[in-house]
């Protein structure tokens, strides 16, 4: 965003004259209390961006307290790829003094502060920012009229933002009507009054804080399908529906709950059902029960709930049951930071449970990918008759992005259970083939019915104490997962195909990672970015890719642990025995800022160019280390 150059614009009625300036994108942070409806302003902006073919990404925090409390919503919208929610805000809207105090540090120097002059007294003479006093509370009361309440402040600010950024008022008005249209007409009318009040304010009060997004090159939007906006949990739930999942079971826990809420509401329409169980163990058990009847089922939770599910997950590996398990990660261990993001359940996902339990772990890279990873997980679970864990996280779960509507006719999977007759030679656990269960209800021609079991078993599912069979069956369970690994396409590689450094990311760190690559490349460093969606098993070919770079820097949101490596870094080092693999890890409960990744990379490589672009000397970078 172009810096506004007028330091003072709060004075009286100055008619606006300057033409709006073109910007590529903007980061707006709204800071208030959760009951003020700032989430819905963010939602309106995100959906408007989606409908305008713009890219958008949001970021929000919700207090883990039960009713209200400080809350923010950050929206980054613009033209072209938006990969992260933005390191720092270009514009901060502060509703209260505490909002100002807590978030002024997130505003970049030269940015615009809009504060509610009825509640906030900013530091006088702070000329780092353009400070604009807006009577948000009294302006709203005046605009809505008579009610004497400030309900609608959020919509007032939405109107103001619409004017400043020259947003499409028709589309916004339509969104407001859709949102409130189900309620009585007064609510829509009051909302529009507040909107108009906010929209009118800048005309006479702001001199040249007017912007317009660069024109969109529609050729880059080739799918021909309109954009939709939703959060990652919604995308994941709908991905499961497209993939033919009609059964599931769960237990409430933040930030997983909204997936089960969506499925509980949606599934009956599709002839399916979702059971809210008495606990996490019952939830995974019921889900495996569904899978046993031939309906690939889903259960999910956050890390603590996954811990409880582990014994059952071990059974599902032993009995070779297809199952989808979602873990929407949050800060741990224990109750930890339940409304913050972390990627610290990777080892749990891969190695949790007891015994040797080879299973599949996938992780979506953004909101759109939550939809597609669900489909991929279901494909794998069915093909390899195995539990598949999807590692999402709090950031993906709660942020809203716009993406092209999926090509549903091509994606839909038939949910019908295969209860066809099985031949007399049917074996549930053949040593020379991947297990294909005969769901309960299907006839077996031999008249000998199979048992699914957690005991080590022979090919027919009968218990065995044979050490030879245990070795053979352990190999059978391992080999099918290796077979999957061998079939996986090479992962996404961006930037230089060889060079100084390869940045490796997984999960929601994809966006900031890719943006960091651009900065690193711009600084003249030959670098690539590799992103892993399939985390276990790893796709083939990584060894060769890694060899082409001097350093492989793995960025992830978890602790560096006792040995100085984050969880994926640790696993890659163990797998490839490559000492060039190093780690950038952090545990502040927040998504990576692009600058944090760039600084992390700089610590690991010798590059004067990168240091210069970061504005730090090698000396100081090392000092921080």
């Amino acid at each position: 965003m172009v810096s506004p150059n007028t330091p003072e614009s709060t004075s009286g009625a100055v008619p606006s004259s300057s033409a709006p300036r073109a910007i590529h994108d903007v980061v707006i942070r709204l800071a208030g209390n959760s009951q003020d409806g700032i989430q819905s302003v963010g939602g309106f902006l995100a959906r408007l961006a989606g409908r305008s073919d713009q890219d958008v990404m949001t970021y929000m925090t919700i207090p883990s307290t039960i009713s209200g409390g400080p809350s923010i919503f950050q929206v980054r919208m613009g033209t072209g790829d938006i990969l992260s929610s933005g390191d720092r805000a270009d514009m901060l809207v502060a509703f209260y003094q505490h909002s100002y105090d807590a978030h002024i540090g997130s505003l970049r120097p030269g940015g615009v502060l809009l504060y509610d002059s009825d509640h906030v007294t900013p530091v006088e003479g702070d000329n780092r920012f353009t400070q604009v006093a807006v009577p948000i509370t009294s302006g709203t009361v005046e605009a809505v009229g008579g009610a004497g309440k400030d309900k609608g402040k959020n919509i007032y600010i939405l109107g103001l933002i619409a004017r400043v950024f020259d947003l499409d008022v028709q589309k916004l008005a339509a969104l407001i009507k859709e949102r409130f249209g189900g309620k009585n007409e007064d609510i829509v009318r009051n909302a529009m009054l507040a909107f108009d009040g906010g929209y009118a304010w800048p005309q006479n009060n702001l001199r040249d804080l007017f912007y317009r997004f660069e024109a969109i090159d529609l050729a880059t939007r080739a799918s021909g399908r309109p954009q939709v906006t939703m959060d990652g949990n919604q995308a994941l739930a709908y991905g499961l529906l497209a993939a033919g999942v009609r059964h599931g079971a769960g237990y409430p826990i933040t930030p997983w709950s909204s997936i089960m809420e969506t499925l509980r509401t949606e599934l009956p329409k599709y002839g399916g059902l979702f059971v809210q169980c008495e606990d996490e163990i019952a939830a995974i058990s019921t889900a495996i029960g569904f899978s046993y009847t031939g309906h690939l089922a889903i259960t999910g939770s956050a890390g603590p709930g996954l811990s409880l599910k582990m014994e059952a997950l071990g059974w599902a590996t032993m009995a070779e049951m297809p199952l989808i398990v979602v873990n929407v990660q949050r800060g741990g261990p224990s109750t930890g930071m339940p409304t913050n993001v972390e990627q610290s359940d990777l080892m749990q996902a891969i190695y949790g449970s007891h015994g040797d339990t080879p299973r599949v772990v996938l992780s979506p890279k953004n909101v759109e990918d939550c939809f597609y990873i669900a489909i991929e997980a279901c494909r794998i679970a069915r093909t390899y008759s195995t539990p598949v864990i999807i590692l999402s996280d709090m950031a993906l779960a709660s942020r809203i992005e716009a993406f092209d509507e999926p090509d549903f006719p091509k994606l839909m999977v038939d949910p019908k259970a295969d209860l066809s007759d099985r031949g007399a030679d049917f074996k549930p656990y053949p040593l020379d083939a991947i297990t294909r269960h005969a769901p309960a209800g299907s006839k077996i021609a031999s008249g000998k019915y199979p048992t699914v079991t957690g005991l080590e078993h022979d090919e027919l599912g009968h218990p065995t104490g044979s050490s030879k069979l245990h070795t053979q069956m352990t190999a059978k369970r391992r080999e099918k997962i290796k077979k999957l690994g061998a079939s996986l396409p090479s992962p996404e590689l961006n930037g230089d195909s060889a060079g100084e450094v390869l940045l490796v990311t997984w999960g929601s760190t994809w966006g900031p990672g890719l943006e960091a690559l651009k900065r690193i490349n711009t600084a003249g460093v030959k670098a690539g970015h590799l992103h892993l969606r399939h985390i276990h098993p790893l796709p083939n070919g990584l060894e060769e890719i890694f060899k082409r770079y001097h350093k492989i820097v793995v960025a992830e949101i978890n602790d560096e642990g006792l040995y100085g490596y984050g969880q994926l870094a640790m696993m890659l080092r163990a797998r490839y025995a490559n000492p060039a693999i190093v780690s950038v890890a952090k545990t502040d409960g927040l998504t990576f800022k692009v600058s944090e990744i760039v600084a992390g990379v700089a610590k690991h490589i010798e590059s004067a160019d990168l240091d210069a672009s970061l504005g730090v000397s090698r000396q100081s970078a090392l000092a921080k280390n």
Partner: protein
Amino acid sequence: MSSTVLATPPAPAGAPLTKKILTADHPTWCPGCGDFAVLASFYRVLEKLQYPHEKIVTFAGIGCSSRFPYFVNTHGGHYIHGRALPFAAGISLGNEDLHVFVFGGDGDGFSIGGNHLVHTARKNVNLTYVIMDNSVYGLTKKQTSPTSPIGFKTKTDPTGAIDQPINPMRTLLNTGATFVARSHATQVNHMTEMMLRAAKHPGFSVVEILSECVEFYAGAFDSSIPRKGGTWSLIAEKKNDGTPEDADRHDVTDEVAAFKLAGQAWPGSFGVFYENNVRKTKNVLEAELVTKARERTKNATDLQLLQATFAKMR
């Protein structure tokens, strides 16, 4: 995925299910174990019911009694300790055509799986649960169980159990189960009748069967075995025949009367304590949700539903 070419001709349709067909692995139980009689009764129950073979599911958790599914030639499974009920709920709700039988012991049902017993019962999931109660942990070789009486000496209570045991019948009635009965492994005809009625009951039916562990708790249930000097006290159910003696008989729909029976001094009575055929099953309630939702969506296809949902998110 399916095999259409059959290696051997299938059994002729309608061939009756016999004990011979239903027999699978030889039981691993100790000679004299009460569980053999439960298994024999279950074969008789299936012979009487004549359900389609492929639609019967025999399922269990962990424990001596939970080995049951290996000995019955039906679809089935052997799950983890205490969690057989929620798994079985998934089976029952996943395919309405199946007849689901769950077997387990007192540790599985009343200890590690106690929470699941309560919730599967209150939801009235359509399945039959048979608890083979021997008042001891047998598979792990004699530790105290939730139904071990005070004073019973085990490896974990060498000077005798000190904790108040569970009253199984009171516990089962409290869960909200819609069919609750009690039987004894020495009474094969009675067991068969109880399991048969439980199987026919629409909803969550549970039968507790006292089944002696000859190895670790011999003689536990002698007080209800007449040939060992005990008393076999059968519940006389109300016949509603207007006779004066009928007034004293037990009304199985009377929950309070059922609780009174459950409070009797050991060894108590045997038979049906409670039966409620009015409450809807979870299976029915979920099906009603689907029906209503399908009406609202005018039977739209899955594709149409998803497209309509996404259109709203533009």
